[in-house]
C-alpha cells in the first residue's frame, strides 16, 4: 500500500509538466511568429497566456496545501519547494514569449532590417535549454540539468554578438534603423532571459536530486 501523499505529489508533477508543455509551446510559437512575420500566431500566444497564468496560480495553491496538510520533509519537501520555483520560472518564460510576440507584431509591417542570423541561433538555444531543463526535471536527471547550466555562457555570447552588431553596424551608422533595431535588441534580450530561467530550473533540478545548491557560483564542467 503506497502513501496517499505520493498520489498528490504525482498530480503536482503532472501539473508542472502541463505548465512546461504550454510554456515550451508558447516559446516555440513566438520564435515561429518572429521568423515568419506571423502576426496572427503572435496574437495566439498573447491570448494563450491567461491559461498559463491560471495554471501557475493553481499549482501554487496545490503546493501551499501540500505543505500545510502533509508537513513534508526531505525529498518530498524539496520537490514541493522546487516545484513552486520551477512554476514561477515557467510563468516568466511564458511572459517572455508574450514579450517576443508583442515585438514581432511591431515588426511585421516594417521592412526587414537585415537577415536574421544570430537571433535564430539564440532562439534555438533558448528552446533547447528549456526543453533540456524540463526533461531533466521529468527524469530527475541532474547530469542533464548540468548541461543546461553549461549552455548559459553561449546564450550570453550570442546576445552580446546580436547587440554589438545591431548597435555598431546599424544604429550608429544610420539612426533611422533604430526603431527596428531596438525591437530586435529587445528580442535578443528576451531570448537570453529565457535561457536564464531555463538555467534556474536546471539549478532547482540539481537541488531536488542531490540537495546541493549550485546557484550563484561558477559551474564545474566535470
Amino acid at each position, binding site marked *: 500500500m503506497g502513501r*496517499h501523499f505520493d498520489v498528490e505529489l504525482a498530480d503536482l508533477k503532472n501539473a508542472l509538466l502541463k505548465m512546461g508543455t504550454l510554456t515550451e509551446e508558447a516559446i516555440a510559437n513566438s520564435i515561429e511568429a518572429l521568423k515568419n512575420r506571423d502576426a496572427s500566431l503572435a496574437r495566439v500566444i498573447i491570448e494563450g497566456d491567461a491559461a498559463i497564468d491560471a495554471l501557475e496560480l493553481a499549482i501554487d495553491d496545490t503546493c501551499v496545501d501540500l505543505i500545510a496538510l502533509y508537513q513534508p520533509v526531505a525529498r518530498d519537501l524539496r520537490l514541493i519547494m522546487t516545484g513552486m520555483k520551477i512554476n514561477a520560472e515557467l510563468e516568466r518564460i511564458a511572459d517572455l514569449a508574450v514579450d517576443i510576440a508583442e515585438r514581432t507584431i511591431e515588426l511585421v509591417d516594417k521592412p526587414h532590417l537585415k537577415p536574421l542570423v544570430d537571433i535564430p541561433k539564440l532562439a534555438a538555444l533558448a528552446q533547447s535549454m528549456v526543453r533540456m531543463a524540463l526533461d531533466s526535471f521529468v527524469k530527475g536527471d541532474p547530469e542533464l540539468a548540468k548541461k543546461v547550466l553549461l549552455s548559459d555562457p553561449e546564450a550570453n555570447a550570442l546576445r552580446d554578438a546580436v547587440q554589438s552588431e545591431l548597435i555598431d553596424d546599424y544604429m550608429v551608422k544610420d539612426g533611422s534603423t533604430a526603431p527596428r533595431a531596438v525591437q530586435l535588441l529587445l528580442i535578443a534580450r528576451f531570448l537570453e532571459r529565457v535561457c536564464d530561467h531555463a538555467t534556474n530550473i536546471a539549478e532547482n533540478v540539481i537541488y531536488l536530486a542531490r540537495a546541493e545548491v549550485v546557484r550563484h557560483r561558477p559551474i564545474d564542467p566535470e
Partner: protein
Amino acid sequence: MDKIVAKNLNLWYGDFHALKDVNAAFQANRITAIIGPSGCGKSTLLRVFNRMNDLIDGVRTGGEALIDGDNILDADADLVRLRTKVGMVFQRPNPFPLSVYENIVFGERIRGVKSKRGRLDEIVESSLRGVLLWDELKDSLKKSALRLSLEQRQRLCIARLIAVKPEVILFDEPCSALDPQATARIEELMRELKSEYTILIVTHNMQQASRVSDDAGFMLLGELVEFRRTDEIFTAPRDKRTEEYITGRYG
C-alpha cells in the same frame, strides 16, 4: 450527500454543558476530522452519533442528531439498528479474547442469523481483505486475536465492524496507541474505506487530521468553532481561535 446532520445539538453531563448548539452536516464518502484541545467535546460529539453517551449517568441532550434524516436521539430510536449502522473504533484496539475468525463473525452470531459455514467464511475473508489483513492472517484464523500485533488488532477491530456492514465508522483516536508506520498504514486504510463509508475521526494529532481528512471541524469548550474543508482550515482558517490552535499558539 449529508449523511449525518447535527441541528442545535446540546449535551449536558449533569450541570456541565459539554456540547453547545452544534450545527454541522457530515458528508457520505468523505473523512471528517474533529480536532480541538482535550475536553473540548470532540469525543462527546462523536459518541452522540451511536448513542454511546447513554452509558453515562446524568446525560441529557437537546436538539437533533439526524442520520439519513432520522433523529437518532428520539426516545424510540432503535439502538440495535443504530449501532449496526454506526460502528466505532477506539483508541486501544479491543478484540474479544477469541480467535481471529470468531471475532469477525461475532456480530453475525449475536444477531442470531443462522449462517451457513460457507457464508461465514465468506464474511471473514471479505472483511479481512477489506482491512488488508487477509494475506497476513488467512493461515492463522484460529489464532487468538490477543496474540496479534497492536496494529493487526486495530485492523481486526475494523474488520469486525465492517463484517456487519455499517454505513458510518466513528474513529476515536484510532492511532494513538500505534507507532508512526502503523499509524500511516491505518490512515491509508481509512482512505481505502471512505469510498464505501461515512467516516468521522476524532484526533488530537493535528497532522493526522490534516493528512487524512477531507473536512475538518475545530471544537473549543463545547462549541464547534469552525467547520470547513480541511485544506481551507489548514491554510486560511477564518476564526482567530482556529488559527491560534492549529499554529500552536493556543493553550
